[in-house]
């Protein structure tokens, strides 16, 4: 992949917690506009990797290059401002705020920062909510949403930061079949507008349908990389998941 096409390049990234090596020499290349899947058994380091990319954690070794810029030393909010957005595995709503107000935060602090926070955020927030099917909940307190509504709000909030790269961390965990399809459709729609998406999921069906390329992580290392079909047949992946 040429350097122009690559949006995110994770090079030899390692992360240790005390004596425990959560990530070892991980290398990932994500192209602009790509739909990228990240799978792996529990504890394999997926969330740690995402945390290192989004800035919640600092990587111990290696580089993370986003849109041609080395970002390993930047705090999370600056990475968000440069175009990386993420949703959380367990939704983290701003509970004292309504759904709309939840979206106003990233709009104000990312999109309208340059204009001293004076932009018209309400209209833009409503537009995003309409795209997610949450418009009727705009003035509801975020502490009163259902699980699937919370997941959608997580994605809406990530979108409000106008990202180039969206990382969806198990957005579909625990949802019913219909709900999974709903969220998946939203992700497809977002990708169609040009947003690069990294999806972490355990729901294999969703990963296979969605991803153009998939990487499998196990015990902090990449054990396989390729198309969804090739991944599923890879013996290493099968061993990691089934322990056979």
């Amino acid at each position, binding site marked *: 992949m040429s350097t122009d096409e690559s949006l995110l390049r994770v090079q030899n990234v390692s992360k240790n917690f005390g004596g425990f090596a959560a990530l070892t020499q991980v290398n990932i290349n994500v192209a602009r506009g790509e739909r990228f899947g990240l799978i792996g058994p529990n504890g394999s380091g997926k969330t740690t990797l995402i945390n290192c990319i989004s800035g919640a954690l600092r990587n111990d070794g290696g580089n993370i290059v986003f849109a041609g810029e080395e970002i390993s030393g930047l705090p*999370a*909010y600056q990475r*968000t401002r440069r175009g990386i957005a993420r949703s*959380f595995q367990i939704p983290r709503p*701003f509970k*004292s705020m309504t759904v709309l107000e939840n979206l106003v935060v990233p709009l104000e*602090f990312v999109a309208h920062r340059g204009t001293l926070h004076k932009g018209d955020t309400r209209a833009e927030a409503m537009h995003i909510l309409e795209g997610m099917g949450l418009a009727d909940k705009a003035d509801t307190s975020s502490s009163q949403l259902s699980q699937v509504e919370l997941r959608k709000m997580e994605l809406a*909030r990530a979108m409000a930061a106008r990202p180039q790269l969206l990382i969806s961390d198990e957005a579909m965990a625990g949802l019913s079949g219909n709900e999974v399809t709903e969220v998946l459709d939203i992700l497809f729609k977002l990708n169609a507008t040009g947003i690069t998406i990294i999806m972490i999921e355990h729901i294999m069906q969703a990963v296979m349908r969605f991803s153009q390329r998939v990487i499998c992580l196990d015990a902090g290392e990449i054990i396989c990389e390729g198309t969804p079909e090739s991944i599923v047949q890879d013996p290493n992946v099968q061993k990691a998941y089934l322990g056979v």
Partner: protein
Amino acid sequence: MNERSWTFWVGAAAVLGLALLAAFTVKNEYFFFAAYVVLQFVVLATAWNILGGYAGYVNFGTSAFFGVGAYIAVMMIKAVNAPLGLQILAAAAVGGVMGVSCGLLTLRLRGIFFSIATVAVAIILETVINNWRFVGGATGVQILRPPVMEPFDSYTKMIFVVAALLAILAVATARYIQTSWIGRGLRAIRDNEEAAECAGVPTLKLKLLACAVSGALMGAIGAPLAMYQSFVEPASAFNLNYSVSALAMPIIGGTSHWIGPVIGAVLLGSVQQIVTVTITSELNVMVVGVLLVVFVVGAPDGIVGLFNKYWKRRRGAGGKP
């Protein structure tokens, strides 16, 4: 300026006008003493709430910032014979620096460590001052006051007006923070810091800003104490009651709105004065503690919250208070 701002500033001007009027007409000295105490608490409670209510970081050491303000004033008087205005500025500057230092040290950790750090700073400072002869040590220090500035005829009256000014400044600052992007960012931090950071909020910077403003205001209101009493000693300047009251008043009044600490300070400050005069001063302190626990448990959003609930019920499901 929009309509709401207009109302606020007119109200503020009215308060200042009333204060000046009182200074030139009221004869009862005790009135000025009681009013000064209440105004002190308005500033302390408002300042506390900027960090505690808006950002969610609990300061247990308000007395440290207040006491330092008083002692910086003392040092300014002794070293360069500074006028009151300069004393206040210096005290505010030091208070702000102190706030930022506490923050830098502990804001990356959990909230409780910030709180403990504030206790630590309070006790360490009190210990240092107790042992420092330049400022009088444990026995305190006497200050020679120049004759009071025209047109006031006593220090009690002049400092009462100064306190009213500082109170207006504090409340205006809190109001600005609350209604601006700063307040919205702090609210996001308080609700969920990690999510706020990922939403582009510069969490550390905003928290440090809140620390600085809060500490500066607390230091500022400590400074006039020196001229007021013409005597400062650690036991009273660093009195625990300041710490407890600065925390209790916003919680009782309501932490989400700038008017909460004002309500709490006026109510609780007045109750304290009445109880001290009529019963005992220990019981007065107990009252504060009990009310604090009662409100924290039963009415977490304070008087403002209770008022909001009552208003919502009256208007039905549609109205926004």
